[in-house]
């Protein structure tokens, strides 16, 4: 059986930062990702990040991903396993089961585990929501930003959170027409600056609207029309408010849900916290869950921005290393700094939902 000091599951912003922070303290780290490259969702983020210089403000997600991946790959204390899906955690003996390149099964026994698996997209129930042409926003970003393929010609974006707004902007950059952005909520959930960016391209944003149904082209079977309708303040659709949009793409961007399977398997105490996207693990301020030695960071710890995911990763990495006795002399300073950064990022009005969610999690 393979052994390592700290296993980091997931090579996105949180996992990369966790691996780097733990290695910086002196620990030996194995970082695993099911994709064939590191970076997680950063590889799709063509927009500049918010925050301060410390959180790579004004740097595009794609560039942050490149910088962090390169640092991880050249760090002698970090081993990187790509095309490696962690499919099980056996709490009795603390062993991870990893499927490598879809053909080998490897068992790894780490001393500490940092779970940074991210989140998956939520979907929306409506008639014919499985037609060709109906995508999650992540798929649209993968197609366009990773493979250079446009998903279609005319898009209905469902969801005016940051992802819906950003992907709409990226679609317009790629020459794809976004006919409208709708959201069932009465106001825009994403940052207003992102909304203003798409508004001045002439894309209408319609709040209090949802999808009623989608209809296929009779010959091709692919999406041809979407019917949307208004909802009232109790989220109930209002008959008679239907509008028909001729679109060949519906892009669904209605939120993310933590990918917490490994935490369930590990036996972590979980709690359903709607403000954080779903079931999340209770943890202390060091990001350690109720199972000693199992840490969380990033969207799996509560769906938030990539900037805070990176700092949570750093915090989890520092603490996991410290618990093994590693400290390069800067642990206290680095930990304090990370906690201050998180506090700053979450202290404003847009952090209120996150603060409410986190308040339910503390141990």
């Amino acid at each position: 059986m393979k052994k390592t000091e700290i296993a980091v599951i997931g090579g996105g912003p949180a996992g990369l930062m966790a691996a780097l922070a733990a290695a910086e303290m002196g620990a030996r780290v194995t970082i695993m990702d099911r994709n064939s490259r590191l970076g997680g969702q950063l590889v799709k983020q063509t927009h500049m990040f918010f925050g301060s210089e410390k959180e790579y403000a004004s740097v595009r997600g794609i560039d942050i991903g490149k910088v962090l991946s390169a640092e991880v790959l050249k760090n002698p204390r970090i081993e990187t396993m790509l095309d490696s899906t962690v499919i099980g955690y056996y709490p009795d003996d603390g062993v991870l089961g990893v499927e490598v390149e879809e053909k080998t099964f490897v068992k790894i026994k780490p001393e500490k585990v940092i779970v940074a698996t991210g989140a998956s997209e939520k979907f929306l129930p409506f008639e014919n929501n499985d037609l060709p042409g109906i995508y999650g926003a992540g798929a649209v970003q993968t197609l366009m930003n990773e493979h250079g393929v446009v998903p279609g010609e005319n898009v209905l974006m469902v969801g005016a959170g940051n992802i819906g707004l950003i992907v709409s902007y990226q679609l317009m950059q790629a020459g794809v027409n976004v006919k409208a952005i709708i959201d069932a909520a009465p106001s825009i959930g994403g940052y207003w600056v992102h909304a203003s960016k798409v508004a001045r391209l002439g894309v209408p944003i319609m709040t209090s609207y949802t999808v009623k149904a989608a209809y296929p082209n009779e010959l091709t079977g692919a999406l041809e029309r979407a019917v949307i309708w208004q909802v009232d303040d109790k989220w109930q659709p209002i008959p008679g408010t239907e509008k028909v949009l001729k679109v060949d793409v519906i892009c669904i961007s209605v939120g993310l849900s933590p990918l917490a399977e490994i935490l369930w398997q590990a036996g972590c105490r979980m709690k359903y916290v709607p403000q954080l996207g779903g079931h999340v693990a209770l943890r202390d301020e060091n990001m350690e869950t109720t199972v000693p030695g199992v840490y969380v960071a990033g969207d799996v710890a509560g769906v938030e921005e990539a900037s805070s995911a990176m700092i949570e990763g750093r915090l989890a990495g520092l603490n996991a290393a410290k618990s093994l006795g590693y400290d390069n002399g800067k642990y206290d300073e680095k930990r304090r700094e990370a906690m201050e950064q998180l506090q700053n990022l979450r202290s404003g009005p847009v952090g209120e939902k996150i603060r409410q969610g986190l308040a339910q999690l503390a141990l």
Partner: protein
Amino acid sequence: MLKTSGIPTAEDLAVRIPPEERRKKGPVVMIECFQKIPCNPCFTACKHGAIQKFEDINDLPEVNFDNCNGCGLCISKCPGLAIFVIDETYSENEAAVSLPFEFLPLPREGEEVDLLDRSGKIVGRGKVLKVRNGKYEDRTPVITVAVPRELSMVVRNIKLGGDVR
């Protein structure tokens, strides 16, 4: 309404428009940032002490307009693409508006383009004066376009093509 359409109202804008006195003196920044989000690179980008240091990173940017020389170095550093530089002294009848523009193809200097307002509506035609697309701009090119003076606070985007006069 910003929170339902992404389009700021005249009332929203009123507090961000540089004072008229200052506008008469030459190019000056206008930061169309209306929501307290954790973000401060505009302060970091400003080399003239015009954009004030943030007490709290969630604060809205504060501008000391007298210190701003309209250099526009903040435009491409704003992650929200919310910064514009307005020069109402450009010519007798025209103002020059500098805006971030992340679309291809880029306009050529001298090219006539459609002028768009904050809702993407075409409000006129104008000539591109300058295209800044260097290493500093880092894929957020800054376009300066001449607009009819009365549209200096209206034009916030451009569109290539359109009817050539």
